[in-house]
């Protein structure tokens, strides 16, 4: 049924438990398919029995409780309960074995990522034995296809939940309790993860993209992310950097290679390389960026980004500068 509905309604599949692209999601989908099929069969059987019981043709004068018939009914009911128990037990066994497979610990060569939930955005950090090579980004995870990714989940404020349905089930980010999960993308693509635990005003607009790419391009991406931001080359962008550093921007955001180093909001060192802004809410275009900077509360009411009334020229310069942060 779901396949039919999907075909009719043309859903995109970047955020769907029914289009698995990783081992755990595939196991969950397998469970769903088998349970769904069983449920349909059982539902039809029980409803048929009910409707037959209700509407069957009756002889004019049937004796009400007839002992022999009651005994027969007892046998039928007992058999039905027995079958129910067997079906449930089968579910239980298959579920437990599936659970084992899903929670198996990741291998040693898994990529380690730390995801920290904030109201209402995701901080992402790739650690390395050399602290200078740490990479901090936001609202976007890049992973190589076919390799396990171990994610450490933390929260600095309230409970969030990390959930890329195409790849794996969700896991909560609970302050004071460290959690972790792992996943693996089997095919290249962009998968969406929505926050799945109610976390306040903008719970609806707290998404993250998982970009699965070939190992080569992932390696290139990671190297590039380790760079600090380029020094502005022309007068417009250097004016933009000045605006950034002298206005409220620098109070919350950091750009590696500049004095801006605050960790309150997302790291912007490679902002222009990301696909979205405002935690998966808007495509990262110049117009959207301008709207977000000037009046963020129209887009995400309650978000922590304050409105910025910039002089039009300054805004233009700032945008030009931000666009250089590849």
């Amino acid at each position, binding site marked *: 049924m779901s396949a039919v509905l999907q075909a009719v309604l043309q859903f995109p599949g970047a955020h769907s438990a029914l289009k698995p692209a990783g081992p755990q999601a595939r196991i969950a989908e397998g469970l769903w398919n088998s349970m769904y099929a069983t449920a349909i069969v059982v539902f039809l059987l029980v409803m048929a029995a009910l409707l037959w019981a209700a509407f069957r043709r009756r002889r004019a004068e049937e004796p009400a409780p007839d002992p022999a018939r009651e005994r027969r009914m007892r046998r039928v009911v007992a058999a039905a309960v027995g079958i129910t128990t067997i079906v449930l037990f089968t579910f239980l066994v298959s579920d437990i074995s599936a659970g084992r497979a899903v929670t198996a610990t990741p291998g040693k060569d898994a990529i380690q990522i730390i995801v920290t939930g904030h109201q209402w955005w995701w901080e992402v950090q790739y650690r390395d034995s050399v602290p200078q090579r740490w990479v901090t980004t936001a609202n976007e995870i890049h992973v190589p296809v076919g390799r396990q990714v171990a994610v450490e989940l933390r929260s600095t404020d309230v409970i969030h939940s990390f959930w890329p349905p195409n790849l794996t089930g969700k896991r909560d980010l609970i*302050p004071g309790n460290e959690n972790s999960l792992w996943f693996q993308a089997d095919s290249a693509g962009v998968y969406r993860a929505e926050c799945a635990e109610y976390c306040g*005003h903008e719970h609806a607009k707290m998404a993250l993209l998982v970009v699965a790419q070939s190992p080569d391009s992932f390696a290139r991406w990671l190297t590039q992310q380790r760079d600090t931001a380029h020094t502005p080359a022309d007068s417009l962008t250097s004016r933009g950097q000045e605006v950034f550093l*002298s*206005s*409220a921007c*620098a*109070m*919350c955001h950091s750009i590696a290679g500049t004095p801006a180093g605050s960790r*309150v909001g997302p790291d912007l060192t490679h902002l222009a390389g990301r696909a979205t802004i405002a935690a998966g809410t808007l495509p990262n275009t110049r117009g959207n960026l301008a709207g977000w900077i000037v*009046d963020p*509360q*129209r887009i995400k*009411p*309650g978000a922590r980004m*304050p*409105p*910025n009334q910039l002089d039009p020229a300054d805004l233009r310069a700032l945008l030009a500068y931000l666009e250089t942060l590849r």
Partner: protein
Amino acid sequence: MSSPSRSGCRRRRELLAAVLLAAALSACQREDRRFRTWPPAASAIPAVRQSELQPGPTTRDLTVRNEYGDNAWAVSEGKRLYNQFNCSGCHFQGGGGIGPPLMDSQWIYGSQPENIFATIVEGRPNGMPSFRGKLGNDQVWKLVAYVRSMSGLLAKDVASGRNDDMQVRSQEQSTEKARPVQSAVPPASQRP
């Protein structure tokens, strides 16, 4: 048409309506989450006088009313900003250290909202930096509201509860109101 008893009844009803409305408005003010509107007072930085001398006839300044002082959400936002912008780096959690304490009754540059606003925006000698241009007026007013709550200057149902942090001071909503006193320097006991 309107007999005395009926008009009396109506008056009572009006009175009731007025009381209910007042209750509603006060609750609204405490509970509002205004994401986009700014308090009127935030439209311009009030010029707070640094000197007693003034030209022409002696006039008094209009006190600026910070509506965020009646709004629990704005106060808690102020508390968040206080920690995020590292006010606690100098003032700690109100007990003072490098900067003067904020949870006592002693005020060097005045306890009125506009005084605190000026202190944050203009900065003060001996270490208080100026945040002009770094913060939106809106954020400053939230900070002002929170700073006042630290010494019990706001209503208790507006002031914040404890944070999910280490316990270093009793929560703002349990702080007894301390009558503000003008003082040139912090009292000796709290000087570092």
